[in-house]
């Protein structure tokens, strides 16, 4: 065995090439594109710019490390059963890209086609689900209203008793629903981008954005000033504060969202289950842990602290759905920071500052959009034209009172 190690150490392949830009790489004086934020979205934009548009003089900056912000803090759910045509078209495309993402990146992102079941506990929810199912089917998405018998076949352990506070009366079954490993998504995009010449500078914080004559010209960082042809911010959880460096006000309020996982169990639940009324959702990961998430906190905060109230509310709701989890121990808990918009839809595209692009307002729905958002934003940056698929999500919509209302279909928020 030790000989094997020595042999490996002496081989040319060792040390292996860095997957990402090495830590001591100097910043260049100028980049064509500077991307602020090296999460899933930032690295996805960089990857698409390099691979499909030949734009490789790109720097991705992150004040922390790759995928270490809210990319690491979401609960990795992918679905497209929204209510408006604009959202369905957008998220449907993202889901299609996720299906082939491991092949595309040459990196296993562990996409699992679980299906998603949203539960109805009252007539209003059934009406809403029927509406969503019709819209979804019309746009080619697998989404249907299901009765209790089907629910039992989908999730045998789900408590369908009437002896609870809010009995389940039906559900919306979305066979296309899935999960993927969130870290791997950021790593895969980052690796692919770096292989094509993009530089990812970690521990490099954007501290000020220089704007002259209404146009972005440079970014000041803790490691010096870099000039840029254009810049894009992809900083979920800090969208307002980063945009404010360029004097841009956004229609965003920032809330924590708390989640937790239980100790591991034998596989018993495959689909993702969500209850908008109980403000809880769960699925069992391939490690056996139940990931439990819910609505955002009741008031804004830039902090990932835990509160007993929120944990209590998650626990009481999940025990109503899966009584056997009453014995479960909580293995770990955390919070993500969500940039909530008034219409529960993202803000993508142009900003009031020329050559400064926005990828913001991702609230509780950012992870599922990572591939399509990167693809569309890269197209916008490379060609200067706003792709049709993201046009409805421009910042300008708020000035025209043309919101894309997804409050009802965003199950896991207040």
């Amino acid at each position, binding site marked *: 065995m030790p000989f094997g190690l020595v042999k490996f150490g002496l081989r040319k392949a060792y040390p292996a090439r860095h997957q990402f830009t090495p830590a001591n790489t100097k910043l260049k004086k100028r980049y064509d594109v500077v991307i602020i934020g090296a999460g899933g979205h930032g690295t996805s934009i960089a990857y698409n710019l390099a691979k499909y548009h030949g734009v490789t003089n790109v720097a991705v900056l992150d004040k922390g490390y790759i995928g270490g912000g809210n990319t690491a803090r979401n609960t990795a759910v992918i679905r497209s059963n929204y209510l408006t045509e604009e959202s369905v078209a957008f998220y449907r495309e993202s889901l299609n890209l996720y299906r082939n993402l491991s092949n595309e990146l040459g990196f296993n992102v562990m996409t699992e086609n679980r299906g998603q079941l949203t539960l109805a506990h009252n007539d209003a929810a059934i009406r809403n689900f029927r509406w969503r199912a019709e819209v979804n089917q019309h746009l080619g998405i697998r989404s249907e209203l299901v009765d209790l018998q089907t629910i039992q076949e989908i999730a045998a352990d789900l408590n369908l008793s009437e002896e609870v506070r809010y009995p389940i009366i039906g559900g919306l079954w979305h066979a296309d629903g899935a999960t993927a490993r969130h870290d791997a998504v950021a790593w895969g995009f980052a690796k692919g981008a770096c292989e094509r010449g993009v530089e990812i500078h970690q521990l490099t914080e954007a501290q000020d954005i220089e704007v002259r004559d209404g146009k972005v010209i440079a970014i000041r960082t803790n490691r010096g000033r870099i000039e840029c042809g254009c810049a894009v911010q992809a900083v979920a959880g800090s969208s*307002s504060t980063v945009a404010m460096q360029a004097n841009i*006000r956004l229609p965003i309020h920032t809330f924590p969202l708390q989640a937790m996982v239980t100790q591991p169990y034998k596989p018993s639940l495959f689909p993702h289950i969500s209850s908008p009324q109980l403000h809880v959702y769960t699925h069992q990961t391939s490690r056996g842990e139940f990931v439990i998430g819910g609505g955002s906190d009741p*008031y804004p905060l830039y*902090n990932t602290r835990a509160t007993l*109230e929120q944990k209590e509310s998650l626990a009481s709701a999940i025990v109503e759905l899966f009584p056997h989890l009453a014995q479960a121990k909580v293995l770990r808990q955390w919070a993500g920071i969500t940039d909530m918009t008034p219409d529960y839809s993202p803000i993508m595209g142009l900003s009031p500052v020329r050559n400064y692009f926005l990828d913001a307002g991702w609230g509780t729905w950012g992870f599922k959009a990572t591939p399509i958002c990167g693809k569309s934003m890269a197209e916008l940056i490379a060609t200067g034209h706003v792709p049709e698929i993201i046009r409805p999500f421009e910042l300008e919509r708020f*000035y025209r009172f043309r919101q894309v209302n997804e409050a009802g279909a965003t199950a896991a928020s207040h």
Partner: protein
Amino acid sequence: MKLLNCPLNGPRNIAEFSYGGELHTMPNPTMCDSREWAEYVFFDRNEAGVVTEWWMHNASAYWFLAERNTITDEVVRTFPASEMFTERVDSINADKA
């Protein structure tokens, strides 16, 4: 349990309150253009730091103001709206506020 000091009811569990948004000046709805109105309705500074905001004690429907640090969640002080407003602000006297 986190406490919020209601100017009317004293210290109560923060779960008894509703958050009512940042304090900002309403433009005169009869005079301002639609962009200005959109800014007022949708846009906020959303600052990370000490922010003055509206809160309501649900059971008594009492609205008041609080200065709260949105990074540490520390409430600096709470005070009745009468400290800042001497009369009702609506479309008729919006400019005076």
